[in-house]
């Protein structure tokens, strides 16, 4: 089985020199390194890992909403925040991990509230699915925003690229031993 399409063949927006599949070095790494150097000063102010998760998941504890309630409650069209785009720059898997590279962007006002929420939530590694569920963003919207934030260097994204389209034996071995230990 060949690997799934990752959106690598999707044309990048005009003026963009970056690509998702840039695994070793390149503009991505340099850019990220700069971000990290710049953000070291903030590390001290980092809250305990998982703190925001508890608050956020507690907020969801109010039970399930029906589709009707959802349709009524959502006054803003879901893709407004993405500027109407429905396709992300690269195809993020639901389990792809995301972490913020900056915790306090110098100018918060330039970021959409949804993006600020993602930065807040991703102080520890969170999956695309968790971001969508806890921040109540439809999956498609979350994917677009996260991919954009990755391109802007606001978050780091970790997604496996399996040569065979499936986790290899070595990784399966680790999963197996992990499952036996928990």
């Amino acid at each position, binding site marked *: 089985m060949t690997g799934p399409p990752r959106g690598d063949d999707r044309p990048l927006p005009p003026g963009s020199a970056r690509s998702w599949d840039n695994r070793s070095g390149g503009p991505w790494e340099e850019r990220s390194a700069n971000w990290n150097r710049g953000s070291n000063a903030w590390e001290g102010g980092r809250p305990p890992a998982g703190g925001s998760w508890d608050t956020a998941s507690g907020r969801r504890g109010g039970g399930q909403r029906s589709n009707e309630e959802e349709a009524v409650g959502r006054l803003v069209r879901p893709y407004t925040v993405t500027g109407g785009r429905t396709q992300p720059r690269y195809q993020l898997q639901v*389990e792809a991990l995301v972490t913020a590279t900056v915790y306090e962007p110098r100018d918060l006002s330039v970021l959409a509230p949804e993006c600020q929420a993602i930065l807040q939530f991703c102080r520890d*590694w969170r999956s695309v699915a968790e971001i969508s569920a806890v921040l109540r963003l439809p*999956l498609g919207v979350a994917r677009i925003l996260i991919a954009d934030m990755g391109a802007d260097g606001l978050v780091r994204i970790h997604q496996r690229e399996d040569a065979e389209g*499936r986790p290899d*034996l070595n990784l399966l071995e680790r999963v197996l031993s992990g*499952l036996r230990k928990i």
Partner: protein
Amino acid sequence: MDSVRSSVGAPQGAAAAMTSVKIVVAGGFGVGKTTFVGSVSEITPLTTEAMMTVASTDVDDLSHVPDKNTTTVAMDFGRITLDKDLILYLFGTPGQHRFWFMWDDLIQGAIGAVVLVDTRRLADSFPAVDYFEASGLPFVIGINGFYGQFPHRSKDVSEALAISPDVPVIPCDARNRESTKATLVTLVEHAMSVQATGRY
């Protein structure tokens, strides 16, 4: 065969080695998918929602809500931290089978699938079995024993589902953490043997 992590802008170091994997949990409506996920997840199962747009109105009967042009598809999932740098996600499939597009998305890069079966409603699991057979995703059958009863032998269930004798069929209790763990272990072992022998 190597898994290469694509780390967008990740510096070298411990934090860069974080990896996530996923297992899909499928089965008919009310068969215990969310219970299964919840029994082993370290978080209360969360729900992520995807929007389906007007393009799907041909298959969705929306006549009673004429102004409605989107439908929400919900997916429950849980998380298990297996190691300091390895997280396993369990995703319950959206129940309705017309949402195949969600399944296609979900099985990309998955380890495999657990198909939960209620032997009183065996036919409910046929679409999932067909789907995973066609997609080549390794899967196991978990017979969810309601009231702790397993009136049918694994072999009989295997024959009734018309699946390859290589596919493990195991009794389980979706409410029980140890049972769920054992089912997941069986799946991972099966995925490894599938990969070692090159058969699907």
